């Protein structure tokens, strides 16, 4: 599964998107994010399953082509 990674350096800062990881479980995704994005002493670091992001606008065009198209 793909997870988007968000973080902020200081409390009160905006929480911003800093990258993504691919992992087999939520628990592993958290550890991957911790180890991979360790360039800062984050005040807050979080991962979100890509499938749980609810798009409001800006829907990405479908990349896959269905059989028969």
């Amino acid at each position: 599964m793909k997870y988007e990674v968000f973080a902020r350096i200081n409390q009160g800062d905006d929480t911003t998107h800093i990258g993504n990881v691919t992992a087999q479980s939520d628990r592993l995704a958290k550890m991957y994010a911790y180890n991979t994005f360790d360039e800062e002493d984050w005040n807050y670091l979080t991962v979100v399953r890509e499938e749980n992001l609810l798009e409001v606008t800006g829907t990405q065009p479908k990349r896959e082509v269905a059989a028969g198209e």
Partner: protein
Amino acid sequence: MSEWPEPAVDYVQAISDTKLVLGHRYAEWSLSGPSLEDDIGGASAAQEEIGHVRQLARELESQGRDLDWLNGQREPEAFSNAACLDSIEGTWTEYVASIAPADRAAWYLLDAIDRDDLDGLITKMGEDEYFHLEYHDARLETLAEDNPETVQRTLETTLPQALALIGPEAYDEDADPVFETGFTDRPIAKIRAAYIEHYRRLFDGTDVSLENVDWDQPALEDWDETRRRTGSGSISQTDVEQLRGEKNKLFTMN
């Protein structure tokens, strides 16, 4: 700095040696993981373990241990590392199922130390260890799905070896010499119980059965109290040379 009771010096030596070899194994395998994230995690853990060793070596030196000896100027049989780290053969699955029990056992021993002068040091190490152990468990969960036979077979060997690092079941509150001195706040029997319960819970409901793990190891009569293991095994001479960094001396700039 106050003097530690003699059994406590060996106790900390075994933790330090386990971390020393653990750091080496992490580094050896840090380009062998199934993903870049696994490799980054291994390389990061290697650095942290060696950092812990440097701190513990300073403490052990203050208790009379020779720094060169601590840093590897000794025979392989003089290392008191967890036996499951002596050599790791096989695949990345065997590697994870070997290092995880050792890292957790060393942390449980460290966490039991009850000394005000070591409190800050241990708290900092615990912050690092939280992420090591959480990563190991997360990985063992996925490997239990992907490759349960290998995980189970490896743990049947490595869990008793890690239990030997912790110590024998017979070391309860009336018999554990380190606990009796007040150096630790819980006896070995209690540390073992928490350790065993953790792995039973971790694999509960998975395809990995721990039914054939010999949870009674080590037998008190077979246990080497200094090296915290049974038997005469050790890391290899090559490992010792790599730990000393002898070949790297060629590149030293004066």
